[in-house]
């Protein structure tokens, strides 16, 4: 009996150790990045499409803070607890001094410079589809922003800090279960440039699927129901489907949808503001018209 128990403890210990090792982050080495000539303008465009500022805003009650800078601290409610997206301005209290590879590993792999896993509330699962070059351009643009000194706030988790350590490690298992890997966007050669640009923006930086695609048992996006709509990730209401938009008479054509993305409710499009869509639509309005039309062209093609 004792031996069985001992064996059980040893087996359990081994399983836990294996799990702990398997769950360890596996960042890319610096050599994975080739030479890069930064394009700040392109970085700004993708930073806007990706909505980086929308999540990394200062706290609501911080009336002194400049809301045009991603100094972080605004509460983000998730089923796991309340998170406060950190300061990502180029200050020492933010991401000042980060190397290119540290930034790429964070944004595309969800791995911190301290080699821990980030929570998927930071939508790196979508950003993983971006090219390294675009991600480095985002960093180049962010490096031009005014540095803000702002300390980061710990998440409010039901079980506190120990729970956070275990949870972060456990995210390694989640990444495996969810089939997550930094797989870049692949063009569809049977489609034209406009469609491919739209597909890239929607699937990668735009992270539209994070809200518009329902999740499976592993809390990963259910690819078979891509953009088919479902419960809101923050648990309030339902996110509409982005499929069959034409057949369902939501939009007449790609031009109509591009107009909706540009003006939203100011032109009477009635489902463009609740549940986080307002910030997305505001970001869309700041993109070049060709990007909005590309996104609309891709979405209208989904049946």
């Amino acid at each position: 009996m004792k031996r069985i128990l001992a064996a059980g403890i040893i087996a359990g210990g081994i399983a836990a150790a294996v799990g702990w090792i398997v769950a360890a982050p596996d960042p890319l080495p610096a050599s994975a990045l080739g030479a890069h000539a930064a394009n700040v303008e392109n970085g700004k465009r993708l930073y806007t499409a990706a909505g980086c500022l929308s999540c990394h805003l200062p706290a609501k009650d911080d009336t002194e803070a400049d809301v045009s800078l991603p100094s972080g601290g605004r509460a983000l409610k998730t089923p796991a607890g309340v998170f406060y997206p950190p300061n990502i301005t180029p200050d020492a209290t933010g991401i000042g001094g980060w190397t290119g590879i540290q930034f790429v590993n964070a944004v595309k792999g969800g791995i911190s410079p301290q080699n821990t896993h980030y929570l998927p509330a930071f939508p790196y699962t979508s950003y993983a589809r971006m090219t390294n070059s675009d991600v480095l351009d985002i960093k180049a643009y962010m490096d031009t922003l005014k540095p803000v000194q702002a300390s980061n706030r710990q998440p409010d988790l039901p079980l506190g800090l120990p729970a956070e350590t275990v949870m972060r490690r456990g995210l390694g298992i989640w990444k495996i279960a969810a089939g997550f890997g930094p797989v870049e966007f692949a063009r569809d050669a049977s489609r034209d440039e406009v469609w491919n640009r739209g597909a890239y923006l929607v699937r990668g930086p735009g992270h539209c699927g994070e809200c518009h695609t329902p999740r499976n048992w592993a809390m990963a996006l259910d690819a078979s129901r891509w953009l088919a709509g479902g419960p809101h990730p923050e648990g309030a209401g339902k996110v509409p489907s982005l499929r069959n938009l034409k057949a369902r008479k939501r939009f007449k054509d790609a031009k109509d949808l591009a107009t909706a993305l540009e003006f939203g409710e100011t032109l009477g499009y009635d489902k463009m503001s609740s549940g986080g869509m307002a910030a997305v639509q505001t970001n869309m309005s700041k993109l070049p018209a060709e990007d909005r039309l590309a996104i609309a062209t891709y979405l209208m093609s989904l049946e």
Partner: protein
Amino acid sequence: MYSRLVSSSRTAVIGLTAVMALSTTAFAGPIDDRQAAMKNVGKAMGALAAIAKKEAPFDAGVVNSNATALADNVKAAKDHFPEGSATGDKETWAKAEIWQNKADFDAKADKAVEAAMAMAAVTAEADFGAALGALGNACKACHTDYRRPKQ
């Protein structure tokens, strides 16, 4: 006698209609009432948006009547968010935050009414676009914070 009968039945009919009108407002409940008002707001907004999208010609009369109806209906909707109506016998998309920040919610409603009145005063097509932008932003500001997505 006959005429008295007619007139009394007429009074009865009038009385009955009044009672029916009363009972519909009394029994509909705040959720129904505000949703009906918001639907009218949406309809009026649709007519104004059609002008902006050049699907309908600019007509100051049409602008005025829709903007006035819109203002009236936002005012009406504002009165149907009593304490305790975050849930009810009917599904509602109003967020509980409304009653945590009622003053801000009411201010946002007032802002929409103000923007609608400014729209009602528009007589030149050149002023229409800016007025619509202000009005639409007033809807967006409130729905962003206080409405859950429906589907």
